[in-house]
């Protein structure tokens, strides 16, 4: 089933040094990594960034085949980015055909953007592959909780996010069930023109919406029955703690950022 191929946002349960890190550390590290990708000006810098990511993936014990799986959904975007960048390059054309002009700068820029996009996706999937969705939202809540003084409801936002994350698998399961039921009544979700395909979705979407409302109603009832009334005064079962590994990770990230900034000035190629 195609739905199961999406690994972006899927947790891979193994024990590793990366899995053990505090969610906050990982969120901030990934944020730093994403920012660093936009600081890079040369392929040397990307070399450093790719090597860093490679080491992280190796340490996380998540198989490479699993990391690259999350890549399929964005393949189209990647190809489009490459084409647009190759075609919109300025400078001396090395190949001209009809209205198409391909320049050295264009190819250079396309390669640059493609690598940046690939690293962006891989970098963020390392976070989701090694952190349970619940720890992720807890981490985000902690990071943003200082903002509640200026009226940003960090807890409520985090709660909404964890509920949304929690119900992705449930809704997928529901989708899977409904699809099976309708296909055994002869529904065809794969063949046909675009219009037919859109129409074929109706027998899937109506029951899915009904299910979503049913689930939401049940959940609201269950939360109220357990006296949930917002974030004020709530304590948590598993407090988050920074450990030694988090300090090491922080140092590593700082060194990495320093290297990236240095690479802006020393270009090898």
């Amino acid at each position, binding site marked *: 089933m195609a739905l*199961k191929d999406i690994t972006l946002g899927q947790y*891979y*349960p*193994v024990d590793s040094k990366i899995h053990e890190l505090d969610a906050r550390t990982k969120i901030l590290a990934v944020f730093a990594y994403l920012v660093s990708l936009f600081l890079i000006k040369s392929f040397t810098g990307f070399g450093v960034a790719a090597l860093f990511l490679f080491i992280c993936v190796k340490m996380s014990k998540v198989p490479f085949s*699993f990391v690259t799986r999350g890549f399929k959904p964005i393949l189209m975007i990647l190809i489009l980015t490459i084409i647009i960048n190759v075609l919109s390059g300025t400078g001396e054309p090395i190949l001209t055909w009809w209205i198409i002009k391909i320049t050295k700068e264009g190819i250079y820029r396309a390669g640059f953007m493609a690598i940046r996009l690939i690293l962006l996706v891989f970098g963020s999937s390392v976070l989701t592959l090694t952190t349970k969705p619940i720890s992720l939202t807890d981490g985000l809540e902690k990071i943003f909780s200082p903002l509640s003084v200026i009226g940003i409801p960090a807890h409520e936002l985090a709660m909404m996010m964890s509920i949304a994350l929690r119900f992705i698998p449930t809704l997928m399961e529901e989708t899977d*069930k*409904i699809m*099976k*039921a*309708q*296909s*055994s*009544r*002869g*529904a*065809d979700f794969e063949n046909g023109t675009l219009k037919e395909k859109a129409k074929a979705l*109706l*027998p899937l979407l*109506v*029951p899915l919406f*009904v*299910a979503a409302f049913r689930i939401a109603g049940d959940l609201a009832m269950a939360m109220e029955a357990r006296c949930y009334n917002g974030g004020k005064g709530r304590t948590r079962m598993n407090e988050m703690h920074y450990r030694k590994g988090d300090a090491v990770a922080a140092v590593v990230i700082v060194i990495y950022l320093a290297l990236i900034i240095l690479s802006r000035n020393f270009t090898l190629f």
Partner: protein
Amino acid sequence: MRIEVKDLSYVYSAGLPYETKALDGINFVAEEGDFIAIVGSTGSGKTTLVEHLNGLLKPTTGQVLADGVDINSKDPEARKLRRQIGIVFQYPEYQLFEESVIKDVMFGPKNQGFSEAECKERAVHAMNLVGIDPEKYGEVSPFALSGGQKRRVAIAGVLAMNPKVLILDEPTAGLDPKGRRDILEMITRIKDEQNLTIFLVSHNMDDVVEFASRVIVLKRGTIRLMGTPRDVFHNLEEVIAAGLDLPQGPSFSQYLLSRGVKLKRTLTFDETVDEIVRVFKKE
């Protein structure tokens, strides 16, 4: 239609750390007109097994044959056979979607390519079979019906496709005793009228004893016991080991035996009553 399952195994999420072997080396034959009950504790693989019988899941290894043809082969014949195997899922009422009951029941036949008039005729027939009056309920929204009525409409939606094999995954879950009996009696009636082959997944052993001609007991993806209800429930230890309840009859006669009353092993409720009367009259 004759269904044959050969060395069927199925693994969920193959190759991932959380892969589960849901079925392991399943073999059985269902003859035309058989009423087969599939029982087993939660997670034993019942749903996984029945989803193989009409090609919704493809075996990891092994084969499912319908009248001797592998239903998963590319043969157009296989496609035609798959369409004659109807399946009613657990809580089928959740798959209703049309604006009126009759339209929902017509969905299957429409996909089979019948004309509007023919679809309607089949839908009316199917609704009559399940005891939903087409005159009264035909134009009502399916979401306005009670749970039991929705269930019947969903079953009608499958029956309207004229299946030769009917698979029901816990069709009576969550219904009251009368609703349960009604549905099972209806299934038996339709089976006899149209000579269907029935697969029924059930947690209720009394229903199994009363309605099934053969029983398959699953435990952790393998067949533990198979045979007529009498043979299967004769093997009380195995049945209990598979995590099943005993039907009322054997359960009560077992109790009397353990308390020193000498009586024959029985199967159905009525048989048990007769046996107890016989024993006590003799004393």
